């Protein structure tokens, strides 16, 4: 039996296909796999082995990157379940969500315009706490209820939070300079 380069990342890392994940186990599995496949382990071997090693190590890194971040992991789980999370093709967001989005965005805009570093940092902290709640909901939907349509909706909320956090980071960097 040959190992398939295209097998799913959870199988590749020997982890259960769930949203809730043991981060230490993921990191150990990553190190364990790289200890086998990394190009440094094959540098003195044939060209073919070097090439295979690079393909495998690339795949293993891609898997680690995908599983490590909650948002990417949730998107990947939905992709495995055949559910599309793309915003472009699914814009039917609830009015409550749209309202919430606008409020956050206005707060960030105001703080940015007023060059309020502490206000931006505070928003960042509140947003982190908010993201934790949304992730807990996502875990419930994905792991317990298997409500993939609902989860896709939650993923889009998380995407929005992620984007807003990046904007706050960028605003903070701009203010520091």
């Amino acid at each position: 039996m040959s190992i398939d380069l295209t097998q799913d990342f959870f199988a590749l890392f020997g982890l259960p296909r769930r949203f809730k994940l043991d981060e230490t186990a993921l990191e150990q599995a990553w190190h364990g796999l790289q200890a086998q496949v990394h190009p440094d382990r094959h540098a003195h071997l044939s060209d073919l082995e070097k090439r295979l090693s690079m393909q495998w190590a690339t795949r293993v890194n891609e898997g680690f990157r995908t599983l490590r971040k909650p948002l990417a992991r949730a998107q990947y789980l939905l992709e495995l379940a055949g559910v599309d999370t793309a915003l472009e093709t699914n814009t039917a967001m609830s009015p409550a969500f749209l309202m919430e989005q606008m409020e956050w965005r206005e707060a960030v805009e105001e703080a940015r315009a007023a060059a309020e570093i502490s206000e931006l940092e505070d928003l960042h902290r509140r947003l982190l706490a908010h993201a934790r709640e949304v992730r807990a909901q996502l875990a419930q939907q994905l792991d317990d209820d298997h409500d993939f349509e609902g989860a896709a909706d939650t993923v889009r909320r998380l995407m929005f939070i992620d984007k807003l956090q990046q904007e706050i980071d960028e605003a903070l960097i701009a203010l520091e300079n």
Partner: protein
Amino acid sequence: MALLQIAEPGMSPEPHKHRLAVGIDLGTTNSLVATVRNGIAVCLPDESGRTMLPSAVRYRSDGSLEVGRAALEAQAVDPRNTIVSVKRFMGRGLKDVAHIEAMPYDFEDSPGMVRLRTVQGVKSPVEVSAEILRRLRERAEASLGGPLVGAVITVPAYFDDAQRQATKDAARLAGIDVLRLLNEPTAAAVAYGLDNAAEGVYAVYDLGGGTFDLSILKLSRGVFEVLSTNGDAALGGDDFDHRLFCWILDKARISPPSLEDARRLQMKAREAKELLTACEQAPVHVRLASGEEVDLVVSRDEFAEMTQPLVQKTLGPVRKALRDAGLAPDEVKGVVMVGGATRMPHIQRAVARYFGQEPLTNLDPDKVVALGAAMQANVLAGNRAAEDDWLLLDVIPLSLGLETMGGLVEKVIPRNSTLPSARAQEFTTFKDGQTAMAFHVVQGERELVADCRSLARFELRGIPPMVAGAARIRVSFQVDADGLLSVSAREMSSGVEASVLVKPSYGLSDEEIAGMLRSGVEHAGEDMRARALREQQVEAERVIEATEHALDKDGGLLAVHERDAILTAIVNLRALLAGDDHRAIKASIDALARATDDFAARRMDNSIRTALAGHKVDELEL
């Protein structure tokens, strides 16, 4: 002729022949070569006992060359033909080089990389660097008593693709097989971490002659994981010299100095800077070509004040690297100082203040990179048992992307991605019937293409005519373990496939490199054929040994006839080794490689399965 050795089943043909491999620190100011001897990394000295080779090359009018100290000493009398700090020009265009007006060279701007007109003709920075590398290779081969299997060559972590590729090209010109390009701070972390059995998060502050790197690493149970890296590929000790040089010009009211005077004053500035590490003040005494005397004294405080902006400039990358790693300064367990420039007391003070702890200076900042590179070369050459090995997980320093509409950059691989890394992005046509598409590959963090480093341009042709938006063109980026990029593009939707592979080479074509190789070999008085033969013999021995080792470990994965085919290929190759036909040896090496292709794939599967079986890393055998 050697007879075929077959080890007893289960018995390893140990002890392995020690493969000669070195680590090379190709520095802006000085270069070193180191190796692992009896388990200990040592820098190899020249005949007069010096380990540091000044990175200086002088092209003389009689066609001969001076490399190192002799060249350095000639720079005041022959500045135009004596190239120092050539690393600053690697993979760089004329507009990328700072303080170019203060340099005594006759530059020629050529696409991709600047060149220098010398008395021996126009030279690329790659050729100049190759002379330094060649000298180090010769030193190592004389000292170790045989041709090298390969070398790990260090580069600043913040070097972009063009600079890395230029370094690899230089090694090729110097007749060196590059086992790996290794980031300098990572090499230092290996040397420091292994010597001190360090665990936890460390920062490496590496201020070299012309480059600055800051890497954050997590060290845990034999794994060196780079969390983030940042830096400035045009900031180093040279800039501190330059500040002092400008201060001297200003104080002594010299404007503008002749080439020779400028060189003399620059050398004096460097001497004074080095003196100030140990002394409170340093004299600057120079007799100019006009007979006029410069007689000044610079104090440590004055020097610290005039260079404070440079010290501050290093703290920007420190902040960014910490932010990318998601860490605060007090979460760093130790700060390893690397590079001669970190001896300056005011730099150590600034770093101590920022991190709230005294930096680690218990290793030689000039040698630690070469020593770490030697340790890694020893691993890559296969000289250590797999279970004793450590694992290096390094990252790409700068994002890679493509130009999109309006001169904007679409990032494909973000900075600090763990190597090797690959990503693909899909694009489509914007006109009906469009059959070709142009791509522009760039590197950098800025949003506008104009602010990023242009790496390569290429076109995909032969797209079948379709309505706008119907074609699906998948562009794939692959960055290998050396941090080098290759790009390919393919039209997916029609079943018709067209693909191109881009290997950027920055102004140096393969033909040019081949030409340089020929002239370089002739120059060094080497016999091209003898060199080729020796290289193929070393390669053949490497391949035979690797194959025998594989048979010994995993022979059970093969059927009897498969094993016989491989053994026959080995016998055939061995039979050619005593002869002098390098082409026949090459062909036989290729035949052996073909015979083992399937075996290699099975071995890789097998090792993955072992990893998946739930073993801990340290219980595994390869």
